[in-house]
C-alpha cells in the first residue's frame, strides 16, 4: 500500500472514482470487492487487492506515456480488467472510452479515430482481429493491451501488443522508479477533467461521444447512487449488497449501477460470464440489487411461462393458479404505489411458500430487494408480474447526456406505465410546445467530443438539455415517455402516432421479439415482425408443425395466424388510425453486426427501412 496523503492535501477538489476505491481499500481492505468466475469457481478480489491492481495499471499507463486528457479505449466483455483499467485511467486523469464487444470492425475504426485513442485494450483474439483490420487508419493508436493470451501468436512480433500481465509488470517497475507518481496525478484531478466518453448508440447517424467529467460523476454519486429514499425501507446500497454486472460496461447505466455504485457504497460486484449465461449466474449470485433492460425482464418472464408449460400436470396447475395470484397481487401493488395492500399482503403470504419463493430462487431473484428497468420501454404487465412475485421492480429514466439522472419510481410512490417522478431538486421540465423533456442539473454532460455543432443542438438557448424524448405529465407528478421525437410517425392523414407504444404492446406477447411500426407519410400503419425463435419453436413443436430455420418457421401459415392474433389484440387497444393493417415477417433474426440493431439492441429504423425495402413496398402495394 502506498503511503496515504498528508492531511494538508486532503482538501481535495474532487472525489474521483479512483479516490473512492482507494478510500475503500483503506477502510475495509479485506472485504470482497469483485468476484468473477474462472473455471467454475467464483474468484474473489478484496478491496485492497483491487486498489493494488488499479495502482499497477495506472503506473503502467504512465509508463506508456499516457498524459492528462489522453484517451484509453476498452473493447471487452465485462471483466475485472475492464473496471481496473477504467479506474486506472481516471487515476492518471485520462479519459476512458468503452466499446461494445459486438462493435464490428468498421465501428471500431470510427470510435477509435473519433476519440483519438492512444492506448487500447482488446480483450481477446476476436477483438484484436477487428482492430487489426482497421489499425492502419488509426495513427493515434500506440499500444494495444490484450487480456486473453490465447490466439495471439500471429501478433507476437508486433511491438504494439502487450499482454495484461506484462502491462502490470511495466507498472510495477514504473512504480519502483517513480513511487507516488499516480498519487500525485490523482491529487491534481480537477472537477472539470473529462473522465469518460460514452458513445451514444446511434439509432440515427454515427455515434457521438458524450463527455462526462468528474463533477458530473460526483453529482451522480451523491444524489443518485446515495439517494436512499429510492430503495425499500430507505436502505441504500451498502457493503452487504451483491450486484451482478453483465450489461456492457460502456453503457452509462451499467457503469452507474455496477462500477460506480460499488465504489461509492462498497457493494460487491459479480461479473457474469457472458450475456448468454446471465440466468445461470443470476441463480448462483442471487443479487440483492439488480438492474436490467426490458429485454432481460421479458426473457425471465418468458422463461417462467415456458418452463411451467413443460412441468408435470399438478405443477402446471399450481403454476397457473399462482401466476393468476401474482397478477392480482401485482395489480394491487401497482395501484398502491408499489406497497402491499392488506389483500395483496394476505394473498402474497399464501403464494410465497407455495411457489413464489422457489420460483424466485430459480430465476435468481430470491434475495433481490430492489430491481430496476430502464434504457428502453417495458410492458406494464411484466412489471406487474414481478411485483406479484414480491420483486420490487421500478422503472426509471435517464440518459447518457444527463448521467442517467432524470426520473425514478420511488419506493412506495410508483405509478405503472410511467418512468416516475423527477429527482427532487433537479431542473426538469416538459416543453409545452414540442412535449420534449428537458433537464438541467450538475450531472448534465459537457458536450459531445469534437462536435460543437451537435453539442449546441443538444441544448436549448437557455441552457437546458434536450433529451429528444417526448413526455407527458401523469397526475402532475409522474412522467410518461411517449417516444423519441424523431420516431413519431405523422400519417398522411396528419395524425401523430407513437410507434414505440404500439411496438411495445406487440412485444408483450412472448412470441414477438422484434416489431417495427411503419407509416410515416403513408395512408396506414404496417409492421415488420420478428418472432421469438425459442417460444414460437416450442409452440410449433407442441402442435407438430415441422420447421427448419428461423425464416421457415416465420412463414408457416399457422405462425402467421398466431402473429395475426397478436396484432388483432393490439389493434383492439388502440384507436383506428393507430391500427396495423398489414404486417410482414422478418426473414432473419436482427443483429448488431449486420447493422439492423444498435449495440444496445435498439432498432436502427433508417437502415431497417433500407434493408427490408421490398417487404415495405409490398405491404403498401399488394392487396393482402
Amino acid at each position: 500500500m502506498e503511503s496515504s496523503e498528508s492531511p494538508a492535501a486532503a482538501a481535495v477538489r474532487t472525489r474521483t472514482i479512483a479516490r473512492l476505491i482507494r478510500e475503500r481499500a483503506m477502510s475495509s481492505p479485506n472485504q470482497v470487492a469483485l468476484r468473477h468466475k474462472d473455471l467454475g469457481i467464483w474468484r474473489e478480489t478484496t478491496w485492497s487487492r483491487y486498489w493494488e491492481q488499479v495502482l499497477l495499471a495506472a503506473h503502467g499507463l504512465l509508463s506508456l506515456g499516457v498524459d492528462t486528457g489522453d484517451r484509453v479505449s476498452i473493447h471487452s466483455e465485462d471483466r475485472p480488467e475492464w473496471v481496473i483499467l477504467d479506474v486506472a485511467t481516471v487515476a492518471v486523469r485520462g479519459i476512458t472510452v468503452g466499446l461494445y464487444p459486438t462493435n464490428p470492425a468498421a465501428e471500431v475504426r470510427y470510435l477509435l479515430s473519433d476519440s483519438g485513442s492512444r492506448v487500447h485494450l482488446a480483450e481477446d483474439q476476436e477483438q484484436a482481429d477487428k482492430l487489426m483490420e482497421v489499425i492502419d487508419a488509426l495513427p493515434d493508436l500506440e499500444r494495444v493491451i490484450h487480456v486473453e493470451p490465447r490466439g495471439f501468436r500471429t501478433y507476437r512480433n508486433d511491438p504494439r501488443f502487450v499482454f495484461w500481465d506484462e502491462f502490470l509488470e511495466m507498472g510495477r517497475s514504473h512504480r519502483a522508479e517513480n513511487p507516488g507518481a499516480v498519487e500525485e496525478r490523482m491529487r491534481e484531478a480537477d472537477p472539470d477533467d473529462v473522465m469518460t466518453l460514452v458513445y451514444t448508440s446511434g439509432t440515427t447517424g454515427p455515434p457521438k461521444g458524450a463527455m462526462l467529467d468528474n463533477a458530473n460523476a460526483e453529482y451522480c454519486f451523491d444524489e443518485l447512487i446515495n439517494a436512499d429514499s429510492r430503495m425499500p425501507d430507505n436502505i441504500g446500497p451498502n457493503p452487504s449488497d451483491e450486484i451482478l454486472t453483465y450489461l456492457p460496461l460502456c453503457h452509462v447505466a451499467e457503469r452507474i449501477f455496477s462500477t460506480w455504485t460499488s465504489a461509492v457504497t462498497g457493494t460487491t460486484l459479480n461479473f457474469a460470464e457472458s450475456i448468454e449465461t446471465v440466468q445461470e449466474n443470476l441463480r448462483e449470485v442471487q443479487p440483492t440489487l439488480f438492474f436490467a433492460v426490458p429485454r432481460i425482464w421479458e426473457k425471465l418472464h418468458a422463461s417462467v411461462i415456458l418452463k411451467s408449460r413443460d412441468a408435470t400436470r399438478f405443477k402446471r396447475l399450481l403454476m397457473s393458479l399462482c401466476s393468476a395470484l401474482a397478477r392480482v397481487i401485482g395489480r394491487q401493488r401497482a395501484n398502491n404505489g408499489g406497497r402491499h395492500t392488506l389483500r395483496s399482503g394476505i394473498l402474497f403470504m399464501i403464494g410465497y411458500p407455495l411457489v413464489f419463493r422457489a420460483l424466485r430462487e430459480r430465476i435468481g431473484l430470491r434475495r433481490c430487494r430492489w430491481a430496476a428497468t430502464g434504457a428502453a420501454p417495458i410492458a406494464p404487465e411484466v412489471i406487474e408480474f414481478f411485483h406479484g412475485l414480491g420483486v420490487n421492480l421500478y422503472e426509471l429514466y435517464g440518459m447518457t447526456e444527463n448521467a442517467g439522472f432524470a426520473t425514478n419510481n420511488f419506493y412506495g410512490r410508483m405509478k405503472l406505465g410511467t418512468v416516475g417522478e423527477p429527482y427532487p431538486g433537479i431542473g426538469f421540465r416538459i416543453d409545452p410546445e414540442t412535449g420534449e423533456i428537458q433537464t438541467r442539473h450538475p450531472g448534465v454532460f459537457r458536450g459531445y467530443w469534437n462536435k460543437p455543432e451537435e453539442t449546441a443542438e443538444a441544448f436549448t438557448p437557455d441552457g437546458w438539455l434536450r433529451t429528444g424524448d417526448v413526455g407527458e405529465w401523469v397526475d402532475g407528478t409522474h412522467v410518461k415517455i411517449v417516444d423519441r421525437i424523431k420516431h413519431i410517425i405523422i400519417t398522411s392523414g396528419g395524425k401523430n402516432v407513437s410507434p414505440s407504444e404500439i411496438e411495445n404492446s406487440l412485444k408483450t406477447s412472448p412470441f414477438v421479439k422484434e416489431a417495427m411500426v411503419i407509416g410515416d407519410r403513408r395512408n396506414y400503419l404496417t409492421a415488420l415482425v420478428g418472432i421469438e425463435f425459442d417460444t414460437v419453436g416450442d409452440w410449433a413443436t407442441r402442435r407438430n408443425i415441422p420447421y427448419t430455420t428461423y425464416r421457415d418457421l416465420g412463414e408457416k401459415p399457422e405462425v402467421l395466424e398466431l402473429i395475426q392474433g397478436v396484432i388483432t389484440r393490439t389493434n383492439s387497444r388502440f384507436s383506428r388510425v393507430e391500427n396495423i393493417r398489414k404486417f410482414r415477417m422478418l426473414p432473419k433474426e436482427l443483429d448488431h453486426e449486420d447493422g439492423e440493431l444498435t449495440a444496445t439492441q435498439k432498432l436502427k429504423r433508417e437502415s431497417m427501412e433500407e434493408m427490408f425495402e421490398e417487404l415495405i413496398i409490398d405491404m403498401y402495394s399488394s392487396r393482402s
Partner: protein
Amino acid sequence: MRSRPHLHTSYSADQALMPTATKKVALATFLILAALAPIASSIPFYPDFLGNNDWMKLLSHVAIFGIGALGINLLTGVAGQVSLGHAFFMGLGAYVGVVFGAPSGDLWGWGLPMWIWLPMAGIIPAAIGLLVGPAAVRVRGLYLAFATLGLVFIGEWAWRNLKFITGGSFAGRRFPEFQLRMWKEEEPLVDFASDGVWLGFEISEEAKVYLLMLGLLVVATVLAKNLQRTRAGRAFQAIRDRDIAAEIMGVNEFKYKLMAFGISSAYAGVAGALFASFVGRQIPETWDLFLSVEFIAIILIGGAGTVSGALMGSAFVILLPRLVQDFTEWLSNVIADGEGLLASVADAVISVSPDDFGVVNILPGAGPGLSVFQLNQVLFGLLVILFMIFEPLGLYGIWLRIRNYWKGWPFTY
C-alpha cells in the same frame, strides 16, 4: 457462501461432502436418533420397539451388511466391475480375524486384541485381492463375474479343508468377541459382549454391539463417500462409464481397477470378520455363492453406484424378512380372532394346519404352500427383477425422483 448455495468460491466448497446447512442438520439429527435407539423406551415419542434386543440385533446386522455393501458398491457400482467374489473375501476376512483374535486351542489362534484383528481382517483380504486381481481385471463384464465366481468355489473348498482354521463343515468355530483390550489382559477396557451400565443407562449386550456397529458404519461410510470425490473415485467412475474413453483421458485403467478390487476386498474382509463375530459361530458354508448374490441384490435394490443406495439396500434386504414374518404372524392372529372379510382373506393366504389351503404356511409341516423363508426368496427375486426393469437406480432412484420433484419446484427441470 451462506444462503447462496450455488456460489462456490473455491473448489473445496464445490465438492463439499455436505454442501448445505440443511444436509448437515438432517444428517446430524439422523445420527443422534440412531445413537439413541438403545434407550428408546426412556425417550418420549420414540418408537419403543427399536430398543428391544431383537431389533438391536437386526439393526446391527443391517450395519454390518451396510459395510459389506459399501465394498461391493465401490467395485460394482462405482467402478463398474461386476464381481461375485464378495463372499470369498468376507470369508477370508472372517478367518483372518479369527486366527488373529481367537484364543489358541485345538484350532489356530493368537488371541490378539481387537484393534489388531479387525484391521488385519481388512488388510490381508486387500492384499490377497491385489494378488489375484491382475488376473481378474484383465477381463470385463460377464467374464469378470465368472472369474470371480471361481474364487467363491475355491474359497468354499479351502474353508472346508483348512479344518485347523475353520473348524470344518459341521462344527464350525467360535469367533472372537467384541472386546477392546490394550493387549492380552483379563479385564477388557470396553466390553461389548456383556450387559452393563453406560452413562447411567442399562445397556444390553445387543445394544452395545449395535452402537459399535453404528460407529464402524459411520467411519466406513465417510471413507467410501470421500473416496468418490477423489482422483481415484473419479477415475473409477470414468472406467465404469466407458473404459476405453477413460484410458484415452489418461486414466490408468489397470491400476485403478486393481485399486477398486483391493479396497472392495478390504471392506468385504472387515464386514466378514464383524459378521462372524456378531453371529458367534460360523460354518464354512456361510461364505457361499448365495451370500455374494445377496450383496449384488442389495446394491441393485438400493441403487448401484451410490453410497446411500448401498445403505438403503442393506436395510431393506435385512429388514424385509422380518417384516414378512411379522406380517404373516399378524395375519394368522387375524384368522384366530375370527370373522369378517379380512379374516377370510387372511385365511386364503395363510395355511395354519396340514389340511388348510394357503399360499404361505407359517407352521412347519402345514399344508401346501411356501414357507416364510421360501416366500422371502420369491419376494427378493421379484424385487430384483422389478427394480432392474422399472427403477434401475433402485431405492436411491426413488429418493432421487422425490428429491428432484421438490428441487425443480415449481418447474419440472
